[in-house]
């Protein structure tokens, strides 16, 4: 059970802020879209399986369509040839959307400092949470999801309309 947000409770009613309720609902029903290209994807499979069980955090429904996903999890090396496809997947997701970059390759290019590999996915799409590691253990991925949950919980419902957010997307030409 998730604890209720701060509010005023009385006989048969409970009053709180809309932001908090929406944040609570969003944070505990983040549908992941796994974009797994290499070994970090294997760690993600362990994370989704019964032992580490990401379903405990409301992410049991892995969405393989970007249109029904909230959280894009990029796991593995993204080559420059793959970058436009990743961008397209991100563009197809509806707001609100979040991105977790899992592993050294997705975060910075990792050991692949070379002509064919994108040096971090934040060169093409905005990233909310970075999970370092080569590959990160499932505990780290779960921690990354929990960090994202904290972000989502505290996000204003109006954030996606704010000029700062629009400016951020414009800086990526999205």
């Amino acid at each position, binding site marked *: 059970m998730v604890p209720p947000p701060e509010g005023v409770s009385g006989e048969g009613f409970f009053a709180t802020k809309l932001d908090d309720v929406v944040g609570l609902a969003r944070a505990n029903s983040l549908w992941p879209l796994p974009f797994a290209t290499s070994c970090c994807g294997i760690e993600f499979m362990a994370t989704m399986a019964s032992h580490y069980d990401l379903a405990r955090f409301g992410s049991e429904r892995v969405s393989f369509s970007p249109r029904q996903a909230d959280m894009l999890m990029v796991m593995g090396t993204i080559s*420059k*040839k793959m970058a436009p496809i990743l961008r397209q997947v991100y563009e197809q997701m509806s707001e609100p959307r979040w991105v977790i970059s899992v592993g050294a390759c997705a975060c*910075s*290019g990792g050991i692949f*400092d*070379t*002509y*064919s*590999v994108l*040096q*971090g996915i934040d*060169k093409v799409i905005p990233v909310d949470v970075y999970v370092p590691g080569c590959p990160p253990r499932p505990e780290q991925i779960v921690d990354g999801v929990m960090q994202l949950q904290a972000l989502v919980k505290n996000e204003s419902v109006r954030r996606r309309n704010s000029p700062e957010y629009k400016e951020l997307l414009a800086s990526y030409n999205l």
Partner: protein
Amino acid sequence: MALETANIQDKIAQKFGNEVRNFEMLGGIFTFEVHSDSAHNAIDFLKNDSELNFHFLTDLCAIHYPDNDTEHHYAIVYLLHNWIENTRIRVKTYLSSERLEIKTITDLFLSANWMERETYDFYGVDFKGHPQLKRILNMDEMTSFPMRKEFPMEDSGRTDKDDRFFGRTKTNSQ
């Protein structure tokens, strides 16, 4: 009756005379050099001669020798295999950096199609008469040929690499 190295050498030398030279065993594979204008004819002969019968193209690649004179800047290496006698042969031909082109062998081996595309992709060798000479592995927008020695080893887009952590500064301080 096994296919003797001396036999192969005699047949090739007899047929091509001054066009071929430097017969030697290299890494257990019989190797010779052929002038780039005769490379297509030599491979045709190796494939279709009833005794030699090198009917399988194992591999085709380029090598960049930036320290050689300009006439020998690039080498194209063909590896052929006779499955019946289980004998291999290596054919080397040199190209100048001014005239980086050679006749395609896709008319002899269909498998050469992708190999020549790959060689074009990484070295920029122009295979004359190739049915579809365009990039195969790298992204189409790429303008350089990354396996040439003058191409930088590291990606210029990398932002997180600090020389101090890679032993590239004398005092380990900035």
